[in-house]
């Protein structure tokens, strides 16, 4: 759990890393999430649609952010999780999830911490910009 009293606005939390992303992982996620979109599993289809090959869905990286935020706050303490899918995540990329404290407050008897989130590749390209609100101790 995050410790409310130990955090202040602007704090960067320890990062969470995933990857290198594999096509097999993307395919497994497609099956598990019921995503029928061939862009994620059919190499020829993706190329015929103008892409260099298959790519990960934004929701896979949002899944990593969910994993990251839940790891920081504890299962059951995530109140809000939001992502804007800015850039595509490709096979072989390394993904770093980052969180920065944007505020903390007490509301409805709960100690809440607001976070700004990003995922980025090893080149620093930002894939997702998002936010989360978690309950803290």
């Amino acid at each position, binding site marked *: 759990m995050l410790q409310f009293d130990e955090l202040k606005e602007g704090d960067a939390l320890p990062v969470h890393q995933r990857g290198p992303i594999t096509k097999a992982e993307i395919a497994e996620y497609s099956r598990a999430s019921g995503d029928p979109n061939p862009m994620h599993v059919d190499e020829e289809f993706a190329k015929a649609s103008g892409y260099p090959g298959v790519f990960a869905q934004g929701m896979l990286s949002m899944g990593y952010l969910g994993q990251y935020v839940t790891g920081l706050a504890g299962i059951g303490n995530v*109140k809000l999780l939001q992502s804007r899918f800015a850039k595509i995540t490709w096979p072989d990329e390394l993904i770093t999830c980052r969180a920065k404290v944007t505020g903390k407050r007490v509301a409805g008897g709960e100690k809440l911490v607001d976070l700004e989130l990003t995922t980025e590749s090893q080149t620093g390209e930002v894939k997702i910009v998002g936010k989360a609100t978690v309950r803290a101790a």
Partner: protein
Amino acid sequence: MANRALIGREFPAVTATIDPESVKAFARALGETDPLYLDDAAAASGPFGAIVAPPTYPIAFMAQSMAGAASSFDELGLNFMTLVHGEQEFEYERPVKAGETLTLTARIHDVYEKEGRSGILDILVLETEASDQNGKRVFASRQTLVSRR
């Protein structure tokens, strides 16, 4: 064409019973290792009394509630082949539990168009509310879908 008359349209409620094996497969696909997502015995004696789903799991069963939205896609003239998930937001009261039955109600929150780099984009924002067998809210979803005309 951004048909703003569709704003507020609600789709018939659907129910979804959360399958434990589906939750575990989703957790494994994300490389999760927490026993609350994967181990029946540990989860049963844990704080939620059941296997719980990782926070983005609702995407795996929400497609059903949006099946009703498919005809709206046609009415909106949305190009299904270029439909892209632009944004996703979840608000949670508690984690989704394996074995429970959720009632999902989806509605069109907003429809608008936007000038993009390569032409006009049609934006559709769908909201879904999920409640449990006691009528209590479990989570809400707001999904932004983007289509190139």
